[in-house]
C-alpha cells in the first residue's frame, strides 16, 4: 500500500473541515460544554432572585404622601375632594394624609413637620383650599402643584359637577406607534445579537490558548495552510455556538410557552418572524466570524494567557462602540449615521438586523451580507498571516516570550 493511493492533497476547505470536525466534536462531547450551556441560566436565576427581592422591597416601601395642615373644615374638604378625584387621576395624585387640623388662629411651621418621624411625608399643603401653600423639596412640590391645585378647586366646589365619559375608538396602530413598536423589536434583536456575539466569540480565544498550550499548532501548520486552521477553528466554534443558541432558544421557547406567552410584547418585524430569525442567524454568524478572526489574530500575538486577556480588551471595547453606533443608527433610518453603521463591517450585522425589524426590503440584506462575507475573508486572511508569522517565529530554544510592543509585533507580521 502506498501513500499515493490512500492519501492526497487536501483543499483548503477539506483541511478546514478536518480541524472543524475535531474541534466541534471535542467541544461538544466535553463536560465543559454542559457548563457552557448552563452558563447563561445563572444570570437569569440571579436576575429573577434580584427581581423578586426588589419587588418585595418595593411592596414594603410606602408611597410618598402629601401632608395636609389646614383648619379642620378645609382639611376635610381636601380629603373629600382627593377621594373624589383619585379614581380619575390615578397615579398622578399622591396619597393625602392629614398631619394637623388647625384651630382658628393657630400657627404651624410646615417645614418642621417635614423633619418629623413620618418618613413617607414628602411635602405639606397648608393655607386654605383657596390659597394653598406647598412646602417641600423643589422637585417634589413642582410635580405636585398641578394635582394639588385641581384637588383644591374640587374642594372649593369650582370643579366640573359632572365628568363626561369619553368614548374610545381604537385603531390597530398609528404610523408613530408602528415605528415605535418596530424600534422595540429592533432593539431587542440587536441586544440579543450583541450579547450572543460577545458571549460566544470569547470561546475562540480560549480554544486558541488551549491549542498553544498543547503545542499541536506546529503539527497543524506543517500539514495544512494556516488559513485552513483559522477557518476550521472559526467554523467549529460557530457551529458550537449555533448548537448552544438552538438549545437556549428551545429552552427559552418552552419556558415562554409554559408562561403563556411565546413572544411577549414584541411586534412582528417588518420582514416577518421566520425571515427575521434566519437573518438573525446569518448576522450572528457574520458578527461572530469577524470578531472571532480578530480574537484569533490577537491570540497569535500573545505569548501568555494573561497577555491574551489584556490584548483582547481593546477589541471588546471596540465592539461596545460599534454596538452603540448601530443602536444610534437604528433610531435614524436613512440617515448618514445608518449608512456608516451599515458600511463598517463590525457594526453592519447589528445595524442590518435592526433594519430587518423596521423595513421589509430584502435586497439590502443580500448586498450587506455579501459585503460582510468579503470582510470576513479579508480578516481571516490577515489574521491567518499574523498568526503564521507570530506563532511560528522562533524555535523551542528561542521560545522565551519576547517582551515587545504590540505595534512592533504587528509591523513584523506585515513585513
Amino acid at each position, binding site marked *: 500500500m502506498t501513500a499515493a493511493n490512500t492519501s492526497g492533497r487536501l483543499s483548503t476547505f477539506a483541511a478546514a473541515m478536518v480541524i472543524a470536525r475535531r474541534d466541534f466534536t471535542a467541544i461538544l462531547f466535553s463536560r465543559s460544554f454542559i457548563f457552557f450551556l448552563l452558563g447563561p441560566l445563572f444570570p437569569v436565576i440571579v436576575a429573577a432572585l434580584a427581581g423578586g427581592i426588589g419587588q418585595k422591597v418595593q411592596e414594603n416601601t410606602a408611597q410618598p404622601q402629601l401632608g395636609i395642615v389646614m383648619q379642620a373644615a378645609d382639611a376635610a374638604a381636601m380629603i373629600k375632594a382627593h377621594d373624589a378625584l383619585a379614581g380619575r387621576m390615578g397615579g398622578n395624585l399622591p396619597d393625602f394624609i392629614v398631619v394637623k387640623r388647625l384651630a382658628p388662629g393657630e400657627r404651624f411651621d410646615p417645614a418642621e413637620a417635614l423633619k418629623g418621624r413620618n418618613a413617607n411625608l414628602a411635602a405639606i399643603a397648608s393655607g386654605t383650599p383657596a390659597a394653598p401653600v406647598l412646602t417641600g423639596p423643589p422637585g417634589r412640590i413642582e410635580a405636585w402643584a398641578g394635582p394639588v391645585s385641581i384637588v383644591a378647586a374640587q374642594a372649593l366646589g369650582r370643579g366640573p359637577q359632572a365628568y363626561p365619559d369619553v368614548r374610545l375608538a381604537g385603531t390597530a396602530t398609528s404610523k408613530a406607534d408602528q415605528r415605535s413598536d418596530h424600534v422595540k423589536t429592533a432593539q431587542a434583536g440587536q441586544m440579543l445579537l450583541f450579547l450572543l456575539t460577545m458571549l460566544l466569540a470569547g470561546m475562540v480565544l480560549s480554544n486558541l490558548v488551549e491549542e498553544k498550550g*498543547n503545542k499541536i499548532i506546529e503539527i497543524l501548520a506543517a500539514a495544512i*495552510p494556516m488559513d485552513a486552521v483559522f477557518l476550521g477553528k472559526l467554523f467549529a466554534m460557530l457551529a458550537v455556538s449555533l448548537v448552544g443558541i438552538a438549545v437556549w432558544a428551545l429552552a427559552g421557547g418552552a419556558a415562554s410557552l409554559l408562561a403563556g406567552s411565546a413572544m411577549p410584547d414584541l411586534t412582528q418585524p417588518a420582514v416577518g418572524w421566520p425571515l427575521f430569525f434566519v437573518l438573525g442567524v446569518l448576522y450572528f454568524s457574520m458578527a461572530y466570524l469577524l470578531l472571532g478572526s480578530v480574537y484569533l489574530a490577537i491570540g497569535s500575538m500573545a505569548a501568555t494567557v494573561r497577555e491574551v486577556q489584556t490584548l483582547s480588551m481593546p477589541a471588546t471595547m471596540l465592539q461596545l462602540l460599534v454596538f452603540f453606533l448601530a443602536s444610534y443608527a437604528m433610531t435614524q433610518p436613512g440617515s448618514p449615521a445608518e449608512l456608516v453603521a451599515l458600511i463598517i463591517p463590525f457594526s453592519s450585522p447589528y445595524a442590518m438586523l435592526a433594519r430587518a425589524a423596521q423595513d421589509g426590503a430584502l435586497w439590502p440584506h443580500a448586498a450587506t451580507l455579501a459585503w460582510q462575507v468579503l470582510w470576513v475573508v479579508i480578516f481571516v486572511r490577515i489574521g491567518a498571516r499574523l498568526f503564521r508569522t507570530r506563532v511560528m517565529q522562533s524555535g523551542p530554544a528561542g521560545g522565551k516570550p519576547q517582551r515587545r510592543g504590540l505595534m512592533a509585533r504587528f509591523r513584523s507580521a506585515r513585513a
Partner: protein
Amino acid sequence: MAGNAAGSGAPSSGRPLAIEARGIVKRFDGVTAVDGVDLSVPEGAIYGILGPNGAGKTTTLRMLLGIIDPDEGVRRVLGHERPHEVAHAIGYLPEERGLYPAMKAYEAIAFVGALRGLPLAEGRRRGRALLEEHGLGYAAERQIRQLSKGMAQQVQLLGTLVHEPRLVIFDEPFSGLDALNQGKLERMIRTLAAKGTTVIFSTHVIAHAERLCDEVAIIAGGKVPFAGAVDVARDRIRPQVRLETRAQNGPWRQALPDDARREGNFLYFSLPDSGIEPLLRALIEGEAGILSLSIERAGLHDAFVAIAGEAAAKALERDSPEEQGR
C-alpha cells in the same frame, strides 16, 4: 550563495533530490536567523542537520515544511516550490511534542494522518495496527493524558508515519528519549530509509548524525559552511598519525611534519602530503625503533570543529545530553 556554496557538496549519489534549497534567508525583527542556506537532499537518503541550539536548524526545517516562508531564496520539496502542495507525502515530528490530551491514542494517529489527507477510517485502522505492531496495542483506547510521556511520544511518532510519507522530517527526534528508545528510533530511521523514504533530522548530538547519516549539513549562526557526504566532511581533515618509537630523538625527527606534538610516549601529527611511505623509510633509516604506528581518520566531531569553528563546537558540546548530565 557564495559563502555557503564553497563548502557544499553536490549530492554524491546522483539520485533525484527530495529537497533543494538555494540561498534561503529568514529574518525575525531584523535578526537574521537563517542566512543563505543551500541544501540538496537526495531521495532515500538519511540526512542530518547538525548544529548547536539557536543555530537555525528549526527555522530551516520550518521553511522546508512551508510553516514559514523564506524572506529570500527558493526551496523545492519533492519537486514543489510550495511544500503544502505535497503535504500528503511528508511526515513531520516537531521538537516540541504535542497531542490533544483528550484524544484516544489511535484517534490521535488517525487525526495526524487526516491532516495529511489520509481518510479518517483508514487512519483509525492503521493507527490500531501501528500501535499493535509497536507493542502499544493495549493503549489504543487510552486517552493521551493517560499515557506516559514516552508512550505519548511514540504515538506522535506513529502519527508522523501513518500516511506512509515519502519524506520524513524530524526536529531533534532523540531529545527526551532514553537510550533504549533512542536505539529503537535509530532502527526505525534505518528501516524507513531502506524502504526508500527520505529522512531528514536535526540534531545537536554528533554521534547520532555520524551513526545514521549519509549526508549532513553543518549549521552554525544561521549559515551552512558545509553540506555533503559525511565522508567528505571527515576528509576535510587530514588523517592523524600516532607514532610510538623506542628512540626519543634522532635525525629521523626531521622527517616529521611541523605540527608533530608529543603526548606521553606518543607523537601525533597529520599525515604528510607525500604519504606514509617516505616517512616510514626515514624512520627506519634513522633507527627510530618503531613500536607502533597507526593512521586514524578524523571523526565527524573533528570535522565539525574544523568546519564550524571552535565556538560552534563548544556550543554543540554544551547542548549535548552527555555534557548537560555532568
